[in-house]
C-alpha cells in the first residue's frame, strides 16, 4: 500500500465518522426544536429518564425521541477515534510495516480495554 492510499484510508474513516455523527446530532437538534428533547416524533409518551443517561438510548431511538438521535450521534463521534486506530492497524499491515502494525494494535487494545474496563 503506498503512502497516498494509506492517507486516503485513514482520513476516509475520519470523514465518515464526522459526517455520520454530525448528521445524527443535527437531526436530533432540529427535531428537538419542534417537539422538545424528550418529545417523540411518533407520538410516544414522554419518559422521565435523564437526557444524560445513555443507557436509555435504545428506548429513546425506538420512540423516535430527538435526544436518542443526538445520543447516537455523540456515541458515533466518540467511536470515531477508535475506528481510526483500527483502520491504521489495517493500513500498516497492508503496507507490510510489522513494527507499526504491532504498535498500533497495542494502542487499539489499550483503548478498547479503557472503554470497557474503566467505568
Amino acid at each position, binding site marked *: 500500500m503506498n503512502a497516498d492510499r494509506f*492517507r486516503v484510508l485513514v482520513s476516509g474513516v475520519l470523514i465518515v465518522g464526522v459526517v455520520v455523527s454530525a448528521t445524527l*446530532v*443535527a437531526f436530533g437538534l432540529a427535531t428537538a426544536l419542534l417537539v422538545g428533547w424528550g418529545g417523540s416524533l411518533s407520538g410516544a409518551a414522554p419518559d422521565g429518564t435523564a437526557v*444524560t443517561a445513555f443507557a436509555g438510548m435504545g428506548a429513546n431511538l425506538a420512540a423516535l425521541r430527538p435526544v436518542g438521535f443526538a445520543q447516537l450521534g455523540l456515541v458515533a463521534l*466518540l467511536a470515531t477515534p477508535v475506528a481510526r486506530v483500527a483502520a491504521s492497524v489495517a493500513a500498516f499491515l497492508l503496507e507490510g510495516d510489522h513494527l507499526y502494525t504491532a504498535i498500533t494494535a497495542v494502542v487499539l487494545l489499550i483503548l478498547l480495554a*479503557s472503554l470497557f474496563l*474503566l467505568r
Partner: protein
Amino acid sequence: MTLGADIGIFAISLLAGVVGALAGVGGGILVVPALTMLFGVDIRLAIGASIVSVIATSSGAAAAYVRDGMTDMRVGMFLELATTTGAVSGALLAAAVAPAALYVLLGLVLLFSAAQQAFRLGEELPPVAGASPLAARMRLVGSYPDARLGRDVPYAAQRVPLGFVMMLGAGVVSGLLGIGSGALKVLAMDGAMRLPMKVSSATSNFMIGVTAAASAGIYLGRGDVDPTLAAPVALGVLAGAMAGARILPRLSNRSVRLVFLPVLLAVGAQTLLRGLGVGV
C-alpha cells in the same frame, strides 16, 4: 436550552474549533468557561461537553491534515502508546490523589512553558539535524508539504525518549484532570522533539481524539455528557475544526506559534485557577 442559547453555544464552539485546529488543542479552553460563565452550566457538564469538543476538533481537523500529509502518522501512533497508557493510569489514579495540587502544578508547568515558547516565537523551522539511531529505527523522520514555503520540508525527531515521557505525562494529565493535554502534546513535539510547528500542531490534533476517547467512556457512564449541550458544541466545533484545517497549511509556522502562545497562556491560567477552586 433555548434556540438563542443553542446559537450562542454553536458560535463559540465554531471559534473553539478553528482555534483548536490551528493550535493543536481541543478547544475546551473556550468551551468550558463560555458554558459556565455565559450560560450558567454546571462545571461537571461543561467538562463533559469539552470532552466531546476535543474529539470533534480532532476528527474534524485530522481528516484534512492526514489527507494533506500534515500529520506524521508514525510519530502520532508511536506517541499514542504513551498517551493511552498514561490516560488509563491517570483515570485509575484519579480516586487516590487530590486533584487540586495537580491542577496548580500543571498550571505552573504550562505557564513556564509559555515563557519558553515566547523565546521561540520568531522561529520558522527548527534547525536541521540528523535522526538519532532511535528516531531512525522507529522511522520518526519525514517531510511535510509547506504551501507557504512552496516546498517539501524534511524533518527528523530529536530527543525521542524525552518526548515519549512528556507524552506519558500528557496522558496521565488527560485521564486525571481532563485538561491541558493538547497543549502538552504540542510542547513535547515542538519543544522536545523539535518537529516543525505545523507538523506538531497537526499531529497533536490527530492524537488528542484518541487520548480523549480513552476516558470518554467514564464521562458518558457517569452522566457528565448532556446531549442538549453537547449537540450544539459538537456541530460548532466540527465546522470550525474543518475550516481551521483548511487555513493551517497556508499559514507560516511563525503564525501558528502566534496562535498557540495565547492558547497556552490561557490553558495555564485556567488550570491554575481550577486548582485554586475557581471553576472556569
